[in-house]
Each structure stands twice: as C-alpha cells, then as structure tokens.
C-alpha cells in the first residue's frame, strides 16, 4: 500500500491546519510569525538530516548556503533599475517580464528584478558553488570534513561581513515582498500572516515528501550504505563520490531556498545568518532529532527554532544549543524521538508496575 507511508504527511497537514484555526480562533495570530520562520529553518534542517543522518557526512557550514540564497536574492531585488536604460541584460529582463515596478516606502517608483528571477539565480549559484566545493571537501572524513566545512562557513561569513555589496555588518534591508501568484506574497506584512504560514508549511510538506521518497529510493539505499561503510559501498559498485556530492548539493539547495523565502519574509538579512553558531545549531537540531530521522528533525527543528525565536532561552540561547549537543551525544546518541526510547520507557514502566505488584502480593 503506497499511500500508507503518507499517513504522517496527512497528519502533518492536519496539524498545520488545526493549529492555524486554533490560533486564529484565539486571535493569537502573532504566534504564526515565528512559526513561519521556524518552518523555513526546518527546511534547512531537513536537507541537513539527509546529508548527516543518512549519508553520514557532517556539514558545519550550512548557514553559508542559507546566507547565499538570502543574500543573492536580497542583492538582486533591491537594486533599483528605474534609471538603467540601454543595458542589454536589463532590457532582456524587461522583455521577459522579469522586472517589477513598485512604490517604495517613500512613495516613489522603483523597478527591480522579480524575486522569481532572484530565486533562480540563487539556486543556480548555490548548485554551482556547492558542486565545486563539494568535490574536494567530500573526499575528507571525520574531523577533516568538519573543519573544512566549518572553514568554508567562516569564509562566507567573512566575505558577507567584509564587503560593501552585502552591506557589511548592517546587512541588507528593505527587501521587496516575493509575489508568488495572484495575491499570494511572501512578506512580513502582519495582514498576510496566515497565508505566509501556509506558504512556509507548503514548502516544508513538499520538502518532506521529496526527501521521504528519496530515502526510500535507490539513492537513499546507496546513501545508507555509504553511512554504514564507505569501503563496502564502493566494493558493491556504488559510486559513493557521486552520491555524496548529489546529496550535498541537494541539501545546499534546500538551505538556499529557505534563505530566499525567509529573507523576503523578514524583509532583510544580516550577517548573523551566515554565522558559524547558526550552522552549529542546525547540527544540534539534527542530532536531537535522531540523525537519520526526518520526522524527528522536523519536529525538533520547529519546536527549538520557535522557542529560540520567541526568545524563551534569553541570553542563554547559544548555551542551550551547546548543552543540547553534549547531552544528546552523551546519553541518547540515537536522538530523542525514537521508537526504541519509547519502548524502553514502556518496558521500564511495566517492570516498575510488576515490581509494585509483586511487593503487594508479599
């Protein structure tokens, strides 16, 4: 029965709808803002879960890909083309209908490239960079892979922080909304909260379904075999280098798309999105979710990001993610949300009940 494996997906969709209706009924729609952001971050985490949990390749630089998406879109859509005449590329973009004329905050008209074009450019750019960097990086293992990806992340962070084009420490603001079709738009406008929540949820659902099918496919089996033993996988005739590269690029694209959408939702992006600590917190959430566990990663991703964004951790935010890493690795390296843990708990409870029962009989 093919549809049976989609039961969790339907449950997810039902949860999303019920949550939205409940929040609206209680007129607490402002909860949706952070939840939308958490959903976009979860998209990064989903991609990373497949890379880390299934293929067994750590990446401590995924915030770089997120920033790549966000910054590319920010740079492209904030450039005013109103007074640019005669440039071949700009005219071509106009002819193709890729530019949008809008009023800015001061009431004057500005013309900028459509976010759709920006999304396409961002994805292509990310694919190229992830591909080029992935070829040498994925030859490394263990500590070396961790350090190399970390190093890549730091370089991107430094470039973003150091160049005028990306607004240095201020980042880029006043990013126009991403109009998808008709009235649907990704923007931080409070009136559009509900539809933005659904746009983000839609992307998450699509991402989950895509990755679920990927994991159950030939590619997924190949990835798991790489995680088990790369040598054995090689010996079985699996082109391990190709599969690792494919999944690295795919997870980079997930991060990039999340970056593009969240940047338009927030209306701005700053260098903190490329910070190493962001990458580490993504890794932390994948670890809590149970490494090779899409649903665990999704649930923990939404919950932890939501709590972090609502400011529940206060000034202890980084501390929380750091201690999560340690506690999970020390006590439950398989992750929190696993059937075995539930079963172990059930067994322990049953034993406790039996013991109590035995005591009573005596």
């Amino acid at each position, binding site marked *: 029965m093919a549809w049976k494996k989609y039961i969790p997906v339907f449950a997810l969709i039902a949860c999303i709808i019920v949550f939205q209706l409940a929040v609206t009924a209680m007129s607490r729609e402002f909860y949706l803002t952070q939840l939308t952001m958490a959903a976009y971050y979860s998209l990064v985490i989903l991609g990373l879960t497949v890379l880390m949990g299934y293929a067994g390749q750590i990446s401590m630089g995924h915030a770089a890909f997120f920033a790549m998406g966000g910054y590319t879109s920010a740079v492209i859509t904030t450039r005013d083309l109103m007074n640019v005449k005669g440039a071949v590329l700009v005219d071509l973009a106009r002819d193709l209908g890729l530019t949008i004329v809008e009023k800015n905050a001061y009431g004057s008209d500005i013309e900028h490239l459509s976010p759709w074009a920006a999304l396409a450019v961002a994805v292509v750019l990310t694919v190229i960079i992830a591909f080029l960097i992935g070829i040498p990086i994925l030859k490394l293992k263990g500590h070396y892979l961790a*350090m190399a990806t970390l190093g890549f992340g730091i370089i991107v962070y430094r470039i973003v922080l150091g160049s005028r084009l990306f607004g240095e420490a201020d980042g880029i603001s006043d990013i126009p909304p991403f109009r998808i079709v008709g009235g649907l738009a990704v923007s931080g406008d409070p009136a559009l909260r509900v539809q933005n929540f659904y746009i983000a949820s839609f992307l998450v659902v699509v991402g989950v379904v895509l990755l679920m099918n990927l994991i159950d496919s030939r590619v997924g089996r190949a990835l798991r075999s790489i995680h088990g033993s790369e040598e054995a996988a090689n010996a079985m005739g699996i082109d391990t280098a190709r599969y690792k590269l494919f999944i690295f690029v795919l997870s980079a694209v997930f991060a990039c798309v999340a970056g593009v959408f969240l940047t338009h939702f927030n209306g701005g992006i700053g260098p903190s999105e490329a910070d190493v600590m962001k990458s580490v917190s993504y890794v932390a959430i994948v670890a809590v979710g149970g490494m090779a566990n899409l649903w665990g990663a999704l649930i923990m991703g939404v919950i932890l990001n939501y709590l972090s964004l609502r400011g529940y951790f206060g000034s202890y935010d980084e*501390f929380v993610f750091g201690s999560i890493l340690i506690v999970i690795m*020390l006590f439950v390296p398989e992750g929190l949300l696993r059937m075995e843990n539930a079963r172990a708990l059930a067994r322990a409870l049953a034993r406790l009940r039996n013991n109590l029962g035995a005591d009573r009989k005596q």
Partner: protein
Amino acid sequence: MSFEHLLQYVLSGITNGSIYAIVAIGFNIIYNTTGIINFAQGEFVMLGGMTAISLAAFMPLPLAILAAVVITSFAGALIDFLFIRRLKSPSVLNMIIVTVGLSIMIREIALHIWDEKVRSLPYFTGNEIASINLLGAYISPQVLWVLGVCSVIVVFLGLFFKFTLTGKSMRACASNMIAARLCGINTRNMVTISFMLSAAIGALAGCVISPITQTQYDCGTSLAIKGFTVAILGGLGNSTGAIIGGVIIGLLEAFSISVMPLAYKDAIAIAILLVILFVKPSGLLGAREAAELKEF
C-alpha cells in the same frame, strides 16, 4: 618595501605564528593520546587569559598567571571526567559534536561570568609604548615574552615526552592504545593528563598574548581555527611541524594585510587550510604511510 618594513612584517608574522603554534601543540597533545580533535582548544586560551586577568586584581602578576594555568588545567581534567570518559562507543562524528558543544558552553559560561568587555593583562615588562629597536624595526618587549614562552613550552614538552615515565606512557598511548594498556599503562589517566597538559599550555599562551591581542569571551574560536590550520599544515600530531607551520601561516597573514583589506585576514588562514586539506591532508611533515592509516 624597505628593509625595515620587511623586518617589521616578518617579526609580527613570527609573533602571531608562535601563538598559533602553541595552540596547535595543544591540539596535538590531545590528538596524540585520544585521536580527538578538541574543538574547545581555543576556549582554554580564553579561559587562561580571563582567569589571570581576574586574579591579577588580588595578587602579583606571576602568581595570578600560575593560578590561572592551574585552574584551567583542572577545567581540562573536569571536561575529561564529566564528558569524554562518559562517551559510549564514541564515533568521530559524536566526538566532534561533543567538543563543539563544549566550546560553545565554555564560551557562554565565560560570557555570563565576565560579560562581553574586552580586557587585557598588563604588559609583563614596560608598557604599551615601550619598544625595542631591532635593526630598524620596533617590537614590544611583550613579543619577546611570547617568543620566550613558546620556546620554553616546546623545550619542556620535548624533554617531558622523551625522559619522564608519564611522557613515555603518553607516547605509548599515541602509537598503540591497546598495546599500551597491555603494558600496564592506565590509558584513561593518560587521556586525563593530556587534557590537563593541553589546557595548561593553552592557558599559559592565553596569559602571554593577552597584553598584545586582548582577551574577550569569544576570542578562542578564531585562535582554534588558526591553531588547527597550523596543526594540519605541520602534520597532525607533529610538534616540530606545528612550529614551522605556525611561522608560515603567521608570515602569510602578516604579508596579506599589506595587499588585502584587514577584514579578510581570517579568511586567508582558512583558505590555506582548505587548500592543504584538498592537496596534502597529511601536512608538511606528516608521514604519508601514517596518513593513509588515519581517517581523513
């Protein structure tokens, strides 16, 4: 570029390079006995500097530094007792995640103890404006302290690993953990000692560089990255290589400032790291055969 300029760049490169070399040696000590890359190595440097700064308010400077080194080495032992020993069947991935988590925790604890202000120890001799003229280039007396302490650490470690029983046992752990255990060496204690030694060296480095580079709760991360670059460049586990690698990276960085914006200085070291990892992960002085056995 005049001779004096050149000399000035070279001296600043060697100073920074020797700092990176000490951090790299700290990495090597733990790596050799455990096979772990301790991502929290830079935090030992920060912890040493910060503790000494706080203690220097109550006691003379040498005593404060000594106390800071002792306290930090106990922190290193504590980390081993509380976390590293408790890892069940540690895979490399788990080890990385734990030490990264530790580095974040130590940093955040330091932030809550000391706030985010930039502090520094007083200059050991002279003050900020004291300088020594060396063939036309000017250096601070503190630079001589840095170079001196680096040399003392290297010589001390050389003697320690060569002539003391503990040092020899630690080397035995490095070459073969199981064989060392069969010879009656308590390998667990050796791991603890390696953490203490590495923390102590990091703390000492943190104290010596504090007057020049200043100390802040998050200064450890970039030092750790540089130290790791140096350790890899010299061949992981090789202390002579660490010194050579340190000087090379230090010089490259010093000269990069003359051609590129300062904002990209950190990116240079990391770009070098990536190139080494891609081209020759065994490093300059790392043996190729030994490298093939390790997990790159």
